[in-house]
């Protein structure tokens, strides 16, 4: 089950594809050992829900309804309960996203520093039609986020796990080129 973090965007197209769901936490897998280890630290299995969902998202890029069911089965809670949690937190993706998930800070200080133009530049150069939509090549998804906590370095942008500070519209094409595929 070695899905790299960059694999899922193609594998899961929008709208219920027929391919059967492949579980993340299969018996004997590294992920399963990791999860079991986590569970052993908590008084109840469901306490490990948030990290379990992170594992799914790291492996698959997003959390499908099948994945919610699998996590529910692993942690003795219902698919409905897992859905409530997944949808509560905005950082869990309920749809496939691009391989490079670009979050532009648009809270007040960054807006003053021209974050709006940074957003426009990203949308233009990635080919994403709208905030939240993935580019046709599956490479990029751009969204706005609330404060990334780097107001001194406006405008900060988070791409997957990495921060890029002091981004201006002019820097965007170079940034994207450096991301590679």
């Amino acid at each position, binding site marked *: 089950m070695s899905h790299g973090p960059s694999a899922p965007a193609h594998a899961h197209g929008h709208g219920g594809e027929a391919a059967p769901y492949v579980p993340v936490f299969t018996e004997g897998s590294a992920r399963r050992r990791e999860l079991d280890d986590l569970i052993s630290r908590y008084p109840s299995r469901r306490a490990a829900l948030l990290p379990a969902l992170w594992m799914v998202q790291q492996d698959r890029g997003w959390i499908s309804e099948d994945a*919610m069911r699998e996590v529910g089965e692993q942690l003795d809670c219902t698919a409905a309960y897992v*859905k409530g949690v997944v949808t509560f937190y905005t950082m869990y993706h309920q749809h496939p996203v691009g391989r490079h998930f670009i979050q532009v800070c648009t809270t007040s200080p960054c807006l003053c520093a021209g974050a709006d133009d940074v957003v426009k530049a990203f949308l233009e150069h990635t080919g994403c039609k709208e905030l939240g939509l993935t580019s046709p090549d599956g490479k990029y998804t751009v969204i706005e986020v609330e404060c990334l906590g780097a107001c001194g370095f406006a405008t900060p942008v988070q791409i997957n796990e990495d921060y890029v500070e002091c981004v201006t519209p002019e820097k965007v094409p170079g940034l994207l080129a450096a991301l590679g595929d």
Partner: protein
Amino acid sequence: MSATKMVSLTIEGRAVSVPEGTTILEAAKAAGVLVPHYCYHPGLPVAGVCRMCLVEVEKFPKLAPSCATAVGEGQVVHVYSEKALEARKGVLELLLINHPLDCPICDQAGECELQDYTFQEGRADSRYREPKRFNPVEDFGGDVLYVTNRCILCTRCVRFMDDVHEAPVLCVSERGDRAVISKAADADLTQPWAANVIDLCPVGALVSKDFLNKARAWELDRTASVCPGCSQGCNTVLETRDNVVMRMKPRPNDAVNQFYLCDVGRLDYHWMNRADRLESPKIRLADVLSPVDWEIALGQAAEALRGRRAYVVASPQLSNEALFLLKRLIGATGGEGAFRCATGPEAPLPGVDDLALRADRAPNVRGAELLGFTRRDGDLLAGLKSGDVLVVAGDALDGVDLRRAVDAATVIVVGTVLPVGLPTPVAVLPIANVAEEEGTFTNLRGRVQRFLQAKAAPGLARPSWYALADLATAAGAPSDDCALPSRAFAALAAAEPAFSGMSYDALGLRGAVVAGAEVAR
């Protein structure tokens, strides 16, 4: 276990004493004070999410949610103080921010707690000037439609499905102003008791597809009744408009169905309105049925019964009173009585003791047994002897092979519709159905429960106890002690040891258990 400790407190100036651990809201109810609330429901676990039940408690630093605060000795509670009213006014204003205020087209209007409390203590207008959030209506499956925009997220439906139905398919999805009630993937509300979420919903968010746009709540006349769908005998309210039953809702009774009614029972009322009914007594003239007066039809029936044995097939849909009068008829003619009952799979409601949609799909199986009718699910006509008069009472022949009925020289029908495939009866006596008359049923635990008349019977149809008292009299079993349903029941109670001491007054609308019945099996 030690005796429960009692706690005394004052609510709105009324002294009240309740067991330790009672919540302020429940204590107020005991004192006769209604604390406005949405998420609290006596049948569900406490959630404390709606903030509508905030009350002022003296010496508390801030207002307390009364549904989740236990009483304390000597507490002084103010439900309608300025501070409490101000807080609840704020709660209501927030609840209404995204509410569409579409009361004119909402089925809940008139029985909506959001409407009631806003009228009672909310603001007359809103200060909110932004566009309202919009979400589309969602079909939740079964009988349930979710009108997202009206939802106040009290989570009663989620808790009912989780804790009472034990089929946890609902959740609160998203958060903040985007939050909505949502179903798990591939799940829907087709579980046998799921439609109770419609009754539990305090606003118009969960509405019945069956009742959708059918009637306004304030146009409906409400009548206490008992669900005729199975032998559980859930207490119900029949809601009628212009002599038509528009819907059937559960009526709380802790001893039988708590607050609930299964979907099968709830939706099985349309037959009460069927239009192809027997409306006039009829007799056979030259092998054709002709409408006649009651007296002539009764005379014809008595003539047919003279010197013959009556083989009575009775419907377990008939009341105890009707079955008792049939028993008199059987006694007078030396005959016998039988019944059959349709069956289906049993469907319990897991969170409530001894509550299920029962396998026996008729309300008075126990009553028929207690009154000496033999259950013959296989061949209902097995006891029919040559020369017998076959008396078909109630609509007892649904699903019965009628070829043997030809053996009976004469047939008398006492029913709401004419059975198909039967030899032409000598006399037909039209009777009222369960919605059109008064009577009692005995449920499977032996609880005798009254149902009242919700609508008028068609044409010349008479209540079953009325028609059968006349028939018994005509057949030589004088029944003029049965001139009212209450008197028919009194005669039954006097004659049958199991019903000894019972009367309509004593039964009330909660019922009582027959002598010798085990309370729970």
